[in-house]
């Protein structure tokens, strides 16, 4: 079986992780490709996977009946998206559509959470990174909300 550890190690979200932990994460990881226009996931679906984008461009969008899809954020190589640490399966709030040919590593959330529960050191490392991701995400969102370019 092809090992994904080098690919995992190269992604900024997992940067600095001990090779032991990378191996464990590798057990939940699989590679996924999306052609331009293909959806990684859609709103209302269960968020069973956590995506690390390796290449390409993905648009997070919300569909509005009046205006069609509204893109709220772009993800590129090095970005990550997903919901972790919810007590029961969580759902996506938006769609993710590949704008161009995109490659990602998908982590199975259930499997990842089980392994984090078993190995708290791994859990702590993942939690740190996840918290940072949410913080950065939050900053983007509040700046968008404030509508700084408005009149």
């Amino acid at each position: 079986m092809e090992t994904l550890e080098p690919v995992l190690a190269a992604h900024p979200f997992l940067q600095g992780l001990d090779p032991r932990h990378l191996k464990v994460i590798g057990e939940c990881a699989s590679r996924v490709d999306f052609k331009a226009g293909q959806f990684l996931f859609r709103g209302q679906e269960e968020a069973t996977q956590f995506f690390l984008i390796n290449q390409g461009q993905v648009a997070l969008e919300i569909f509005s009946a009046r205006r069609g899809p509204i893109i709220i954020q772009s993800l590129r190589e090095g970005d990550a998206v997903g919901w972790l640490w919810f007590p029961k399966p969580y759902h996506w709030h938006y769609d993710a559509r590949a704008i161009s040919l995109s490659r990602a590593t998908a982590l199975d959330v259930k499997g990842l959470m089980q392994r984090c529960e078993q190995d708290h050191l791994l859990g702590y490392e993942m939690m740190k990174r996840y918290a940072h991701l949410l913080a950065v995400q939050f900053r983007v969102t509040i700046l968008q909300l404030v509508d700084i370019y408005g009149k």
Partner: protein
Amino acid sequence: MEQAPSPAQEQPGAAVPHLPEPPRLTNMLNPLAEPMLPEPYRVLKRIRETGDTFTLTLAPVQGEQGFHFAPGQFNMLYVFGVGEVPISISGDPDRPEKLVHTVRAVGAVSRAICGLEKGDVLGVRGPFGTPWPVAKAPGQDVLVIAGGLGLAPLRPAVYHLLARRAEYGNLELIYGARTPEDMVYRRELERWRGRFDFRVHVTVDTALGDWLGNVGVVPNLISRARFDPVQTMALICGPGVMMRFTVQELLNRGLKMENIYLSMERNMKCGLGLCGHCQLGPFFVCKDGPVFPYDRLRDWFLMREV
């Protein structure tokens, strides 16, 4: 005649009256009346940039002298009988034969300017203000970071830098706008992106589904730019919130405060440092700015309601 000395008299800078015979006048460098009198300029061309933003190309009604300015400076533009507003000069400083201004219709005067047509005349006073320190940029990486209409006062700096490209290290532009329809200078941005020696990152706050570019905010694009923080000059102009977050991100990445420059905005009436309206703490934005190094500006920038 004696008088008990008071503490104020001992201090440096204590009141020192001047002799009135005649008053000892210094700095009489400028001809007296002209900075207050608008020069007539004719509209040569008018381009619509967005729903409420237009770029006007102007030429003097009389004479062929061209309009010399430094990137970052502004003019006071006067519409006959309506009023006058400060507008950044957004043309090429190496091509002074055309005077270019990009104006957004947000009030009575700017709306009137946006309504002018080819052949109409408006009044121009200037140039005023401190420029972008492009003369200090050779040898450094330069980040040009613009938000919304903030690209207008930065465009002359970009022209200047591109015309002397070999003098700088990395040269990158980060530009954020509300939506793709609110972007200015779209064709120029596309041309710039085509260059091999100039990286252009564009982002919008939101877009409709057919947008193929980036959606997100300017501070988050800084991580994608390439620069050596110790040798980088950043030139920033945009809404106050955007500048604040951008500066914070640049500082987090190791840029020095004295190498970060902001262009500030305040209510202006005279452009000459005489009417008092544009004060920001001790600074008159029209003559001590609008371009400020962040180390000088920082305390006042972070304070509210000054």
